């Protein structure tokens, strides 16, 4: 595992992320790649984003999902490596703009309580830009509404 005292920061210049309903969606603005993570992956992202040390993140996952701490650390390692590889996070400077790391294992209130554990995973969706270029919709066209007799009025 990356060092338990290491902390990381989301690369805010190139990455945007949002958590909702036990899920996190991340977009790399440079590559237009979307990522999603749920369950322990969403938890891990949230706690890493909060600036917690990796050791604390693993401990929090172990407590939340009632699993062995060693297993939590082992599973967290490839997840963090993947986040680094995708350019979503970077090592945080000691004086970086991070919130103070708390060893509390309490999950963030926005994360739904779901204690079925599976290792944190990051799912990528890399081709949205390519896909739209195949046959781009042209919503900017000033097309007329097509409503004929029998169609309903706008509600």
């Amino acid at each position: 595992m990356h060092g338990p005292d290491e902390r990381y920061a989301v690369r805010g210049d190139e990455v945007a992320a949002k958590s909702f309903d036990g899920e996190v969606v991340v977009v790399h603005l440079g590559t237009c790649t979307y990522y999603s993570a749920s369950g322990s992956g969403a938890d891990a992202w949230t706690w890493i984003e909060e600036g917690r040390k990796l050791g604390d993140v693993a401990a929090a996952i172990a407590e939340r999902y009632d699993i062995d701490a060693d297993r939590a650390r082992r599973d967290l390692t490839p997840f963090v490596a993947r986040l680094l590889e995708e350019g979503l996070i970077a090592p945080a400077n000691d004086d970086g703009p991070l919130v103070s790391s708390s060893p509390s294992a309490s999950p963030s209130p926005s994360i739904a309580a779901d204690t079925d554990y599976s290792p944190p995973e990051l799912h990528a969706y890399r081709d949205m830009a390519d896909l739209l270029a195949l046959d781009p919709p042209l919503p900017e066209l000033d097309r007329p509404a097509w409503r004929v007799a029998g169609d309903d009025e706008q509600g």
Partner: protein
Amino acid sequence: MRVLFVTDLFWPLIGGIEVWAARVVTGLAARGHDMRVVASRGDGLPEKDTLQGVEIDRLPFRDAIEERRLDRFGEALGELRRIKGEFSPDVIHLGTLGWSTMFHLLSRDASPAPWVLTLTQQRLASQNVAGDTVLGRALDSADWVSSVSRAVLDQAIELLPGVAGRSSVDYWGMPAPPEARPVSCDPPRLLCVGRLVPAKGFDLAIEALLALTSRHPEITLSFAGDGPERERLETMARANGLDSIAFEGWIRPDRVCSRMAEATVVVLPSHQEGLPVVAIEAAWSGRPVVASDVSGMAEVVSHGETGLLVPAGDGDALARAIDEIVSDRELARRMGVAGRRHATERFSLESMMSAYECLYERLVSGVERSSAGQ
């Protein structure tokens, strides 16, 4: 049958997919199916709407992706999950491969219903179908892939051979318009219909007109549609002194066939097409088609019988083919009649509805999924 239809593009916008999707949804509702639509929000359209009694929710798929609005992303995903749970569909039909596809993939946990993906894209061959792409995930996990043409399906199968065992070509159909009067070549009237975008190759139609004017002084060309190419095409027409060209703007989908009935030949010089809806409409209108021989076109235009196909991008060949038809009234009429017959056999609304009904029923009964898994 409860069918949730998810699409980027939908009524009341005009376009091939939009019009097809509206026909599918209202046609199946008229056959007694419980239909519900989730479409992309935008264009000033209301978030909630109905079409002939079918409930429509427009979610911010486009804002979430194009504008990278993650607050909209959460809203769209949450709403799609809620609708899937609330409506509890028997089948989910994805009408487009685009913004909404990713949201469907992310919300698959909200409904166990089998799902159908309709493929319309004409340039799939160069795409990446790795497991971390939307296209790869969609083709790999769809219970059924319904393609608008053989040409498009062949590309999908080449990308992912496993698609072959759970796919079909389901041609788009449309209501039969009234029989048009026989084709008139006096004077020759050419008509181009569609979005004025570079992919349609409409500049080639202007080049062809220029080449034909000396031989057919009364010949005219009209464009029905609009888009970013309009200014360039208008400039091209003016620069060549062609006052026989008219730009009519959009015409309503329910009036396309009556407009085509006033033409001698419908011209489609497209550089690419998945399934050219305009060619189907021309066939139903009993009008010969001169078109470029690109993906899917030959499935609608039978060369020498219902029209003529020419190499894509070849303005001279396009002009020669138009000349051949407008110079021979009997040929033009024969092609028009053959086109109508071809449309009746292959592109009827009823056969399209029956094909989808049959597909949904097989998916719900589990026949297709179990056979695909063997």
